């Protein structure tokens, strides 16, 4: 079943065309890695998927609901799409537990006790059950990012967007975050990741999408794509990053 459907999407910032007609379908349970140089439009595409940016033209459908300006409230959107940011964006004034519980309680109006149970489960899943009462500032970057993943999961989204989630981390902390994502993928979570971790894209993704100058330049199975790039741009990109 197709969960996310992107059809001929354009987006410009002023005179700068950032997305020049994107077509992308993501099936339930699929893991899609989006790669490409900075400025190729990959983060913008991701941000269009949850309306942090509003696309100019084209269609985006998520779980068969069309996404236009104001067609879905943030609340409805959050039931479908979760997001993890490069800079974590944890709420610094709330404990780890409260970070996870806040939205289900406030947005969904779920009972605090039930939510706390869910919070402990998702924190356990990311390996941080013992940090329930810690504040974000007391955690390492890798731990903070795992909390951010748990926070997104507590909303039980149908698809999780990950925007360069390891780019702000020290190299030794990247692994712990990627392992969490790998476990989620194995459970059948639908993931769309913008990433610079080529090894991860190759090993975990079902499909890799290479963006170049606002277009999807090449896409395919990771093994095939990395070993047999068809376009010179992808060849050059791969040789530059590997």
């Amino acid at each position, binding site marked *: 079943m197709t969960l996310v459907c992107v059809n001929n999407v354009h987006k410009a910032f002023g005179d700068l065309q950032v997305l020049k007609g994107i077509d992308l379908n993501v099936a339930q349970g699929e893991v899609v890695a989006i790669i490409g140089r900075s400025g190729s439009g990959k983060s913008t595409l991701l941000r269009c998927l949850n309306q942090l940016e509003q696309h100019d033209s084209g269609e985006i459908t998520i779980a068969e609901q069309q996404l236009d300006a104001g067609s879905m409230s943030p609340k409805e959107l959050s039931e479908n799409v979760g997001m993890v940011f490069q800079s974590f964006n944890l709420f610094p*004034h709330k404990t780890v537990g409260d970070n996870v519980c806040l939205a289900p309680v406030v947005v*969904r109006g779920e009972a605090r006790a039930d939510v706390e149970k869910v919070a402990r489960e998702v924190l356990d899943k990311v390996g941080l059950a013992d940090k329930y009462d810690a504040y974000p500032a007391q955690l390492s970057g890798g731990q903070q990012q795992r909390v951010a993943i748990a926070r997104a999961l507590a909303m039980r989204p149908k698809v999780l967007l990950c925007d360069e989630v390891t780019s702000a981390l020290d190299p030794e902390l990247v692994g712990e975050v990627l392992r969490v994502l790998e476990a989620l993928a194995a459970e059948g979570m639908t993931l769309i990741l913008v990433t610079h971790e080529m090894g991860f894209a190759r090993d975990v993704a079902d499909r890799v999408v290479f963006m170049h100058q606002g277009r999807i330049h090449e896409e395919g199975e990771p093994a095939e794509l990395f070993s047999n790039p068809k376009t010179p741009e992808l060849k050059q990109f791969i040789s530059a990053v590997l």
Partner: protein
Amino acid sequence: MIEFTLWDIVRNLLLAARWTVVLSLIAFVGGATVGLVLTFMRLSSRRWLQRFTSLYVDLFQGTPLLMQLFLIFFGAAAMGHPISAWWAASIALTLFTSAFLCDIWRGCLEAVAKGQWHAARVLGMNYFQTMRHVILPQALQLSIPPTVGFSVQVIKGTALASIIGFVELTKAGTMLNNATFEPFTIFTLVALFYFALCYPLSCYARHLEKKLYDAGLR
């Protein structure tokens, strides 16, 4: 001429200092109240409310406090409703304080990282939920040190009320000087009194600022 001992001078200044404190409290409490209203007006999505508040802030920050004081004091009289120096000073200082606090608080709200809005948004929170649970608590924490710091400016600002005849610390100083002709002693003492009022607040503000910094919030 009556002889003034040092103790007489100190005692009289102490008595006058009460009015400096009272006027400061009025200005601060009044200014905070008006400032809070202004801050929310500033946050409103109505264009004219935003314009009004930024004009208000610019006017009070771009003109001398002394002129604000004169305009209210003499303005009220010119309109046929003379008011006492008490009222004029209270009103002028309240308005002056509100403009600066509004500006400080708006800065604190804007200082909360953009990513916090995004994070709340993708978790499904609407504007008010985000404000209430994510932005305001953080802005409040950020706002305490500069607000305490500004209270020092309010106390110093009350000295200008002396010019329209309100008897507080500075006015008492000039009056005592006229009676004793010991200007050096008197103005040293007046300065010391202000210092004793302001310096602890300055230190406290700095301490709070450092605490925020150490907590990684600034």
